[in-house]
C-alpha cells in the first residue's frame, strides 16, 4: 500500500471516529445517563437490592415510553431526555463502592447516581460525590448521620431516615394503649441495629415511661442461628420483643422463634419487616406489629399513582407485590424526574447542568406512591415522608399476610423539625411535632 493510500485510510478512520464522537455528544444532550447502585449479590440482594432494581427497570421503561404513568409523570423520560440506566452491584464493601462511584462519574460519564442500601456505603460515597461535584441521590439507607453530621451540596436522600420508623412504632403503641412492661430486644450488632433500638427505647421512654428494657441481645449481622437468644428472651419473659432484623436474618428468627413460643402472649415489634411477609407467608404469626420504613406497600394510601405502580409491578412480576425497596426506588426516580423538569422549566428546556439539578433538588416536594415527599431536613437535602404501622393477619383465602389495625402518621409527626437532630428531638419529647 502506498503512503498516500495509507494516509487516506487513516483520514477516513479519523473522520469516522470524529463523527461517532459527535454522535455520542449529541445523544448525551438527549439522554440522561443514570447510574443505579444496589445489591445484586450478597445478603441484601434478596430482600432489598434485586426488588429495588426490578422496580427501577420497570419504572424507567415506563417513563421512557411516556404517557404510561399518571400525571404529572406522563411526559417521556426525564423532561423528554431518554433515561439510560447503568446498574452497579453494591456488594463488596465501602472502599470498593467509592471506586465504583468514581468510575461511574468519570469513566462512564453518568449524569447522576441513585443508589445505596447500606448506611456504611452511603457515609463513604457521599464525600466522594461531593468532591467530584456530581449529583448523588441516596434512595434507601437509613442512618440519620449523613445530613445531621455533614453538609453536602450535591448529595440528597429521597427517603426518610431511620429515626422515623421507631418514633412511629412507639407512637403506635401509645395510640393503641398497649400495656407494655418489660421489653426485650434482639438487634444486629452494627449501626442499623444499634440506632434502631436506641431510637425506639428513647421514644418509648417519652411515650410510655413504664416500659423498661430488661434484655438486649446483639447477634452479629448474618448470624442465622438464634437458639440461645430465643432461650434468653423466653427466660426474661418480656411483654414486648423488639427487633430491627431484616432479610434472611429476620426470616430465620421467625422460623426459629415461632415454634418455641416467643411470639405467643406478648407483643412483637418488627420495625422494618414488610419485605419478609411475602416470602414467609403463613409462617408469620398474626398480631405482629410491623413497620415498612414509610407508608410503603400495603400501608400506601390509594391514589392514581399508587394504583398504577402496584398494578404495573404485579403485571411485570407475577405472584408478587411491591414493598419498601420497590417503593423507595420509584420515590427516588420520580424525585429526580421532578427536579430535572423543574430545572428545565427554569433554563428554557435545555438539559440541566449538575448545578441546576442540585438547586432544583434542594427543598423539592413531589408525590410518590407512598405519599407526599418533602426535602425538609438537612438544608433541603433530606426527605421526610408519611409513615404507618399495622399488625399482621394471615388471609387464608387470598393466601397472603394482610396488614390490619393500621395507624397512619403524617411526616411532621414522626420526623424531627429542620433545626434539630433526631436523637435530641426524641429526648426532648418531640417538640414541634404535628400529629393532627
Amino acid at each position: 500500500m502506498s503512503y498516500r493510500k495509507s494516509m487516506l485510510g487513516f483520514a477516513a478512520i479519523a473522520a469516522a471516529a470524529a463523527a461517532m464522537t459527535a454522535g455520542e455528544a449529541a445523544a448525551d444532550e438527549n439522554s440522561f445517563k443514570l447510574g443505579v447502585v444496589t445489591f445484586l449479590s450478597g445478603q441484601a440482594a434478596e430482600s432489598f437490592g434485586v426488588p429495588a432494581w426490578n422496580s427501577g427497570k420497570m419504572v424507567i421503561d415506563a417513563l421512557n415510553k411516556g404517557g404510561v404513568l399518571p400525571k404529572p409523570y406522563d411526559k417521556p423520560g426525564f423532561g423528554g431526555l431518554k433515561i439510560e440506566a447503568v446498574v452497579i452491584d453494591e456488594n463488596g464493601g465501602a472502599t470498593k463502592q467509592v471506586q465504583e462511584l468514581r468510575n461511574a462519574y468519570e469513566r462512564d460519564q453518568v449524569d447522576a447516581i441513585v443508589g445505596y442500601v447500606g448506611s456504611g456505603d452511603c457515609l463513604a460515597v457521599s464525600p466522594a460525590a461531593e468532591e467530584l461535584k456530581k449529583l448523588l441521590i441516596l434512595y434507601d439507607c437509613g442512618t440519620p448521620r449523613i445530613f445531621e453530621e455533614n453538609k453536602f451540596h450535591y448529595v440528597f436522600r429521597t427517603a426518610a431516615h431511620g429515626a422515623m420508623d421507631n418514633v412511629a412504632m412507639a407512637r403506635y403503641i401509645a395510640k393503641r394503649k398497649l400495656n407494655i412492661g418489660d421489653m426485650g430486644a434482639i438487634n444486629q450488632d452494627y449501626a442499623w441495629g444499634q440506632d434502631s433500638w436506641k431510637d425506639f427505647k428513647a421514644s418509648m421512654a417519652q411515650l410510655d415511661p413504664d416500659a423498661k428494657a430488661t434484655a438486649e441481645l446483639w447477634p452479629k449481622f448474618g448470624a442465622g442461628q438464634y437458639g440461645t437468644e430465643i432461650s434468653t428472651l423466653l427466660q426474661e419473659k418480656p411483654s414486648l420483643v423488639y427487633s430491627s432484623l431484616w432479610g434472611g436474618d429476620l426470616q430465620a428468627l421467625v422460623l426459629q422463634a415461632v415454634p418455641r413460643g416467643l411470639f405467643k402472649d406478648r407483643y412483637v415489634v418488627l420495625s422494618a419487616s414488610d419485605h419478609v411477609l411475602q416470602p414467609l407467608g403463613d409462617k408469620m404469626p398474626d398480631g405482629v406489629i410491623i413497620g415498612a420504613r414509610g407508608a410503603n406497600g400495603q400501608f400506601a394510601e390509594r391514589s392514581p399513582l399508587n394504583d398504577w405502580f402496584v398494578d404495573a409491578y404485579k403485571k411485570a412480576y407475577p405472584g408478587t407485590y411491591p414493598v419498601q425497596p420497590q417503593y423507595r426506588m420509584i420515590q427516588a426516580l420520580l424525585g429526580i424526574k421532578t427536579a430535572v423538569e423543574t430545572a428545565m422549566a427554569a433554563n428554557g428546556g435545555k438539559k440541566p447542568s449538575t448545578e441546576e439539578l442540585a438547586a432544583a433538588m434542594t427543598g423539592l416536594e413531589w408525590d410518590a406512591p407512598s405519599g407526599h415527599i418533602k426535602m425538609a431536613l438537612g438544608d433541603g437535602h433530606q426527605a421526610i415522608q408519611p409513615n404507618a404501622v399495622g399488625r399482621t393477619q394471615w388471609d387464608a383465602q387470598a393466601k397472603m399476610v394482610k396488614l390490619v389495625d393500621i395507624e397512619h402518621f403524617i411526616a411532621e409527626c414522626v420526623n424531627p423539625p429542620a433545626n434539630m437532630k433526631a436523637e435530641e428531638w426524641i429526648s426532648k419529647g418531640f417538640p414541634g411535632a404535628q400529629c393532627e
Partner: protein
Amino acid sequence: MELAATIVIDGVIDASWLFIVAVGLTLVFGVLNILNIAHGNLYAIGAYTAASAVGWYYSGSGPPLLGYIVMLGAALLVAVVVGPLLERGILRLFYRRDEIVLVLVTYALFLILEDATTLIWGVNPYYAYEPYGLLGNVNLLGLTYVGYDLLLVALAGITGVLLWLGLNRTITGKIVLAVIHDREMSRAMGVNVTRVFVLAFTVGVFLAALGGAFTAPKISVQPGISITVILLSFAVVVIGGLGSVEGAAIAALLVGLARAAAIHLMPSAELFIVYLVMAGVLALRPEGIFQRMALRKI
C-alpha cells in the same frame, strides 16, 4: 443452676451444627493440607440442594419422616457430584504449588461458587421448614425447644463417632491416617494417595453439605449464608488443631458453650467471644488443642 443448665443445652445445640461443618474442614486440611475457604459454599450448596429436594418431596404424598432421608440424600448427591469435580478438576492442578497458592485457589472457588449458586437458585429465598416441626417440641427446664434441634445434636454425635470409627477402625481409615501422617512415605509404601485425596475431599464436601442440608429447615436459604459459616468453622478448626477430628469436637463444644454463656450473661460480648476463646487457646497452645507438634523435615 437453671441458667447454667440452659447455657449447656443452648451451647450443645449450637455446637452440634458447628461440629458437623467444621469437622469436614479439618479432615480436608489433615489429608490434603488445604485450608478450603470454599467450604462455606459447599455448606450453602448442601442447604440449597436440600431445600429444593425437600420442596419437591413434600409437594408429593410420601411419609413425612422420610424427608430426613431426602435431606441426607441431597448432601450425598452434592458430595458425589461436587467433591470429585473440584478435587480432580481444579485442586489437583495446584498441589505442587506453594500452600498459599492453594489458599488463593480456594478463595477464587469461594467467589465462583457464590455466583454459581446465585445463578442456579437465584436470589429469592428457599425454605425447607416442613422437617423442622415433625418432631414436635420438648420442654426442658421450663423452656420450649424444638425436637429437631435435639435431632441435630444426635446427628453430630453419630457423625463424630462414625468418622472416628471410620478413621481408626477400618483399613481405609488407617490408610487415610497414614497419608495425614506422611504423604511421601505412604506413596513409597504403595498407597494410592490420589484415591485417598479424592475420598477425603468428597467426605469433607459431604460433611459441609450435611451441615447445610440439616440447617436448611431452620433458616431462609439465600445468598450470603456461606460467609458466617466459614468464619466460625475456621475458628473451631484453629482452636481444635488443624486436622484433628477430636479437636474439632472439643472446640465446637467450647465455642458453642462460650457463645451461649456470653448471650445469657453478657450479650454485648457475643460478637468477639469466639475470637477471645481462639486467642486464649492459641496463647496457651499455639498449634491448637489437639495438634501434635510436628517434626520439621529438613
